[in-house]
């Protein structure tokens, strides 16, 4: 009798465990590409630039990296799930409660090293340190990267590959958030054109940003 109970506990436990892990696996899978992330995460300029990049599957090989491949840590599953859950909550909050029309994209991009995880890059680009096809300069710089690992001067892939994964990101961010007020009107037109092409039937015009002419132009003049 006792043996039967233990056996049953094992079987039921196993089935529960299996169902739970499958749930977690498919849950993580279904919430990992740009179509899911863009629903709450303010990332229109990034996702449109991504679709122009070789990482979106446009390359000869058709290999496609998903948002989570580069933007979540892959050192262990706990860190991965924690970072994913935390990002979900933070980005959801920003989407619903913060002033999303006035995000300072340029300031955020300057911190790109903090939200690009090199273990994700190296997971696919496994031969960056010994690929004979790379130029001498690339080989030298990758050796430089390796030398600085685990020192206070450590750099990341995104430190040098400034638009990696998002071809034309600098332009895109200037359409969304022009650094100089003189571009504002044309940038708004360009931004809406890009959004129309990307969102198609679900396109909703965005609110035109208030001019930052007063603050910016005085800053510019004083810095000259």
């Amino acid at each position, binding site marked *: 009798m006792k043996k039967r109970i233990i056996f049953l506990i094992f079987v039921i436990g196993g089935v529960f465990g299996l169902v739970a892990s499958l749930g977690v696996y498919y849950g993580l899978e279904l919430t990992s590409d740009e179509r899911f992330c863009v629903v709450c995460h303010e990332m229109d300029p990034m996702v449109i630039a991504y679709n122009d990049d070789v990482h979106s599957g446009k390359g000869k090989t058709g290999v496609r990296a998903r948002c989570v491949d580069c933007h979540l840590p892959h050192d262990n599953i706990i860190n991965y799930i924690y970072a994913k859950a935390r990002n979900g909550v933070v980005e959801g909050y920003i989407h619903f409660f913060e002033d999303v029309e006035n995000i300072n994209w340029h300031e955020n991009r300057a911190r790109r090293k903090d939200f690009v995880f090199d273990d994700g890059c190296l997971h696919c680009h496994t031969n960056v340190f010994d690929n004979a096809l790379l*130029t001498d*300069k690339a080989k*030298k*710089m990758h050796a*430089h990267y390796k*030398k*600085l690992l685990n020192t206070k*001067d450590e*750099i990341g892939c995104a*430190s*040098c590959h400034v*638009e990696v994964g998002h071809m*034309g990101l*600098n*332009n895109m961010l*200037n*359409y969304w958030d*022009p*650094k*100089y*007020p*003189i*571009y504002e009107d*044309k*940038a708004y037109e*360009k931004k809406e054109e890009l959004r129309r092409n990307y969102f198609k039937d679900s396109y909703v015009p965005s609110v035109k940003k208030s001019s930052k002419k007063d603050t910016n*132009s005085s800053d*510019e*003049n004083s*810095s*000259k």
Partner: protein
Amino acid sequence: MKTDKLILIFMSCMLIFTFSISNDNNTTQVEITKEMEQKYPIKAHHSQIGLSCFDCHENQGNDPFKFKNIGDKGCISCHGDKKRVAKRLQYMDMLKANPHNSVHDGPTLYCDECHYEHKKSTNMCLECHEHEVPRWMGVTP
């Protein structure tokens, strides 16, 4: 006694091996002094990624005071060709004000017409467009 000798030989071999490895990794053994750093400061965006004199002045010997200008070829070896640089600033084409693809020169200017590594850069556009340039672009990096 024999063991001592063996240990000595082993240690010497290890020492030679270690030195040979460190020499392989760093062929240029020149200390960069404070004086050099002050005379030829490296731009913030270059020093942030840990670049030193020898990363740009490749194969130019060991005497930093005899280094030569690396020219466009040197800059391009990391930054991509001029058309690529112009493309990264394509948003400026909305007003035909892209300094790397201007209506006057297209993507043909020498890098050091405006950008300097060891002193303050200039903005060539300013020579004629004195009042407009601050409205188009920031300080030349």
